[in-house]
């Protein structure tokens, strides 16, 4: 069996991830941050260790700036709904996932001004058009770091410089890059960094969050939810400090135990080494697909300019048929369709049919890439 759906969720996980979660359930299990007994304190240490590991991975100055939630969708909703107000203007790209686009469209319906910068069909964004869209009411630039459909990297460093120059906030969706591509919050000048645990951080589902930088005025940021935090229990009002202000309710401590070990695995292997490995696989996949008659490959066709996510189609075959046959006849797991990103597919001119997506990960090998290429070649030949 070949698993090529890492852009949705990475699998397998490092063995330590499973062990850490089992250890938590069997030996700790208590509610973090609520009680004073040793198991509760130990659970708090587990949650804190996860903050430290996220901070280390993204070069965050203070681990308490790491706000955990259930996934990056919640994180992006918190940043957008929490900070944007009536009359504000926000700029995004035409390559966004619905986790960014849907809250933005909902805000637009409430009177927030939205500019969607068109990207090229390869998914690239020109920073000049980004700067040109800035107006007197612009408050935020909100971008993904890399497309979940086609892997194309967006110019985040340039966006960071533009945001600072115009005193705007930069929100970045790192779902496709965190752990698989270097992301330094300071170097890239990111103010709000959304991350998810279950992709290239090699943690479990149900983990993720938002890192809130020092330029964000949290006194003007609304929580998505309010409730028990284990702090300031004598007050009926929400605490006003990080991370408690945005972390109501019992957290997914067992998931965070797994997330820490996933990130530690990434740090041990090294993001640069993982990136180098995935880049080799990606270029091999792109080159192989280019040699298959009838294969249409999307994106930059350059592994340097994208993550290990490759989108393609076979002429004359629906993506769903390709996906089904790869699964049933070759045991290759991939994702077909629109990948929750209609805007990206419209940009790539693959809407509404969609594409076949291979999301490669750190555990994939060159022999798996070659096996998949042979399978696709076979399908293309049969179609002729």
């Amino acid at each position, binding site marked *: 069996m070949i698993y090529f759906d890492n852009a949705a969720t990475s699998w397998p996980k490092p063995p330590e991830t499973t062990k850490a979660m089992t250890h938590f359930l069997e030996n700790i299990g208590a509610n*973090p941050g*609520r009680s*004073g007994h040793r198991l509760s304190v130990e659970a708090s240490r587990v949650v804190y260790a996860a903050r430290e590991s996220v901070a280390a991975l993204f070069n965050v100055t203070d681990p308490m700036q790491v706000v955990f939630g259930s996934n990056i969708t919640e994180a992006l909703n918190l940043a957008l709904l929490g900070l944007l107000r009536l009359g504000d203007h926000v700029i995004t790209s035409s390559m966004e996932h619905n986790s960014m686009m849907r809250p933005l469209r909902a805000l637009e319906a409430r009177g927030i001004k939205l500019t969607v910068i068109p990207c090229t069909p390869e998914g690239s964004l020109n920073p000049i058009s980004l700067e040109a869209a800035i107006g007197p009411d612009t408050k935020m630039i909100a971008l993904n770091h890399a497309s979940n459909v086609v892997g194309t990297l967006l110019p985040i460093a340039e966006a960071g410089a533009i945001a600072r120059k115009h005193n705007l906030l930069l929100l970045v969706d790192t779902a496709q890059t965190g752990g698989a591509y270097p992301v330094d919050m300071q170097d890239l000048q990111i103010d709000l960094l959304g991350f998810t645990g279950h992709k290239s951080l090699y943690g479990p589902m149900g983990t993720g969050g938002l890192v809130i930088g020092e330029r964000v005025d949290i006194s003007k940021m609304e929580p998505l939810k309010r409730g028990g935090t284990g702090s300031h229990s004598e007050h009926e009002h929400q605490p006003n400090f990080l991370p408690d202000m945005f972390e109501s309710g019992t957290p997914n401590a067992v998931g965070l135990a797994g997330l820490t070990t996933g990130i530690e695995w990434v740090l041990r292997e090294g993001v640069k080494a993982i990136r180098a490995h995935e880049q080799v696989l990606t270029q091999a996949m792109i080159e192989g697909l280019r040699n298959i008659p009838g294969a249409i490959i999307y994106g930059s066709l350059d592994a340097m300019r994208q993550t290990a996510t490759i989108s393609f189609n076979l002429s004359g075959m629906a993506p769903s048929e390709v996906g089904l046959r790869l699964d049933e006849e070759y045991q290759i797991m991939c994702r077909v369709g629109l990948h929750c990103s209609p805007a990206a597919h419209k940009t790539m001119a693959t809407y509404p049919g969609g594409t076949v997506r291979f999301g490669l990960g750190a555990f994939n090998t060159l022999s798996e890439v070659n096996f998949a290429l042979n399978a696709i070649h076979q399908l293309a030949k049969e179609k002729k």
Partner: protein
Amino acid sequence: MITSKYSAILVFSTGHAIRLEHVLNQQKIETKLIPVPRYLSSTCGNCVRIKTTDTEAASKIIEKNRIEIQGIKELQEY
């Protein structure tokens, strides 16, 4: 004049207590997490117990790491 062997550093949450403990332990200051005594605060959380003789050193570390605390109080017990 030091009257008590131990003092409590009061923080905003157990998460902050864990962070504080981590930073203090790195600088070889002994700590223990204990529930906040009722006579110090009505919060139901934890605080960081240190030796009262370490108070000055701990304060400097707290300032250097920009950790917000609610205060440092001498303990009547523990």
